[in-house]
């Protein structure tokens, strides 16, 4: 038995395994957004009624931008969270959503059933989604009063987490 080899080998191996085990808890879809701290990409889109809404018009208060689609299960699940928060922060935070790879007809039918908590914007050719680096839905961007991206949430938002972030931005 070569004790030196055993000793050195185990010293190299043990921390590696601990580290990798810790990594298992990590969510690979949480891609770090390069937009954090930078100005949010500008957009001017039409909502389902044909009204124009641009991000620049909303400057001065925090904006929550949620990318979603009717075919997305987690999006449906986070719908009541946004509805509740939009009521709670009415007049202080703007909540808007951008429709991702979906049709206005499907969105209208969906909103008739489940209600709406803010303007849903049509994004032709997903150009805005591409500018925001959206990888899948749902993804939510929190933009502060100065128009800088404060935070990106990949996947479903949580009521408490979003509340904390909004309080920090106000």
């Amino acid at each position, binding site marked *: 038995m070569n004790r030196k080899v*055993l000793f050195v080998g185990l010293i190299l191996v043990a921390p*590696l395994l601990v580290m*990798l*085990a*810790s990594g*298992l808890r990590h969510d690979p879809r949480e891609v770090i957004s390069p937009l954090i701290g930078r100005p949010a990409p500008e957009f001017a889109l039409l909502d389902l009624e044909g009204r124009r809404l641009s991000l620049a018009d909303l400057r001065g208060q925090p904006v929550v931008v949620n990318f979603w*689609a009717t*075919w997305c299960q987690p999006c449906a699940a986070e719908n009541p969270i946004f509805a509740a928060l939009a009521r709670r922060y009415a007049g202080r935070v703007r909540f808007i959503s951008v429709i991702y790879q979906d049709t206005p007809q499907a969105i209208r039918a969906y909103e008739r059933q489940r209600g709406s908590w803010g303007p849903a914007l049509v994004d032709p*050719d997903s150009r805005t989604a*591409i500018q925001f680096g959206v990888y899948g839905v749902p993804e939510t961007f929190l933009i502060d009063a100065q128009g800088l991206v404060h935070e990106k949430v990949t996947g479903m938002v949580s009521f408490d987490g979003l509340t904390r972030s909004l309080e920090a931005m106000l």
Partner: protein
Amino acid sequence: MISILGRSVVLAALLLATLGAVMSFAAAQRGAIAGVARARRLAYLYAVMMALATGLMIYALVSHDFSVSYVAQVGSLATPLHITIVSLWSSLDGSILFWGLVLGTFTAGAAFHLRRSAPDHVGYMLGTLFVVGIFFTFLIAGPADPFAPTPPPIPTDGPGPNPLLQNHPLMIIHPPMLYLGYVGMSVPFAIALAALFAGRLDRDWIRSLRTWLLVPTGFLTMGVMLGGWWSYEVLGWGGYWAWDPVENASFLPWLTAIAAVHSALVLQRKGTLRAWTVVLVVVTFLLTILGTFLTRSGVVNSVHSFTQTPIGPAFLAFLGFCLVASVIVLAMRMDTLASDPDRETLWTREGAFMINNLLLLVFMFTVLVGTLFPIAAELVRGVKVSVGEPYFNRMAIPVSLGLLLLIGIGPALPWGRADNRNVRRALLFPIPAAIAGLLVTFAAGGRTWGVLATGALAAYAVWVNLDQGLRLSRKRREDEPWTEAVGEAVRRGARRYGAYLAHLGVIVTFVAIAVSSSYQTAQEGTLRPGESMTVAGYKLTFERVDARPEPHRISDRALMRIEHNGKDAGTLEPALNRYDTRMEPIGTPAVRTAISHDLYLSLMNVGTDGSIGMRAIVTPAVVWIWIGVFIIVAGTAICLLPAGLRFSRREDAPEPAAKPVAETTA
């Protein structure tokens, strides 16, 4: 029906692997020839079972049997047939099944090829391969079961495989090549462990080790290159390598495998570096498992990552088992593999090999640290970080230049005891070539020190390797009758010709990488129909966008008329493809490849008003990267073929390389 059949076959394979492992180790310990022969037959049977399971899955895919969960996950009626077959490895569960097929094939192949080797060696080797087989078959049987029945209601159609994988024919060959390289590393690992268990690494077994190391190394080289090529042709950012964790995962074992190929040569030749070579081979295998874990467990962020899966913990357990078991076996048995006494000095070929090993290992550690750092940072400081290209490039450039220098001076140096005057002469002789290389590079517009150094070192190395190759054939012709001499030279020298050819391939690749990454010209613009943009001597005129519906996607193609230096150079059609699935549109760049440079067009977006966003990149020498790697692989193949033939035909012939050295430079 397929579910039940598939699961039964996989369970049978699991049983065979378990039985085989027990039988192999038992027979090896007793040195029982009959027992080892029985274990070998189990290896063949195991391979047949894996092939059968894979065949069943392909049948299920082709017949769109959505009652099989994997088919429901990746199948789609609209997907063309060849893509349907390829979707076997487009998603996690299927890729593990394919892994099992490759492992089975390699196990059976090694069992057959080495059937006449010492029974204890073969027994331990098969035992080790079966243990690896148990793990992967277990994955297929349980955590990553592709044959699981779809829970009702059974869908009538599926989403189809990941659109990225449907976009380019390179995706059909890149994964299998990579798998052949990755999985194939199990065989040299098993051979190395067998040497440790048996306490013997003799000539016969060294030769087997080298052969079975070269095979997967060749495939891995090819696989890594095809991955870069694919990302260049498909992803649309104009590059071929981004130090993405998964690219790194394939690169790490490649570095140690290349180190091992060289140290195995020293071992074969001089009998030194015995334990060192074994350690390198073991580390290479461990890195393949680590790399697979990183890819399949969702530990790192990457475009390649399969999302969080149940196989993560199982893989970690296997990785832990392999790491700890390797350390223990090495600690217990390494001292049995003492090297022959050596009289090395630095200025010999062995010295060059040592430095080569050192550089490759430094490179490997740099990449490993860069790849694992984000995990460590998240664990220790709870922050998410990513390690960018500059970190890797800072190390990659000097190490690559060092390796290029070694490709030049290594083959020029004599083996063994070196006479100072000869060494000086051998090293100074090609200096004019280096100066010429420097001047040519400067004249061609090279101004950064990295490119100039690459030019000079490459010219030096080309001179030495050509000189060595030609010298070899000259020598043979003088001593013997002409016909015999050529045959003899090719047969005996094939390994060296192959090596010099591979070196030339490496030089070509290095130069192409240096040039292409230093002199790129890019231009972006928004064009309306009829408008043009110019980039590096090209005039690009946008004519129109065609929306072409295909069964599984809608393809928006921008028709671009190309003029090069005022002359018509045809058209290019970069495209954006929209799939019926849930991803953003995927671009297919259009590339016009010429011997000296590539024109690369990437369609960024198509506006509602008919305008397009276009990115045009002109990169010199890109095609030579692929050509260089093809040369490396061809060299590897030449190294292998005659050695393999000689090995099976004249088993107990004396090793020609052991004879006094005739071809050293002097």
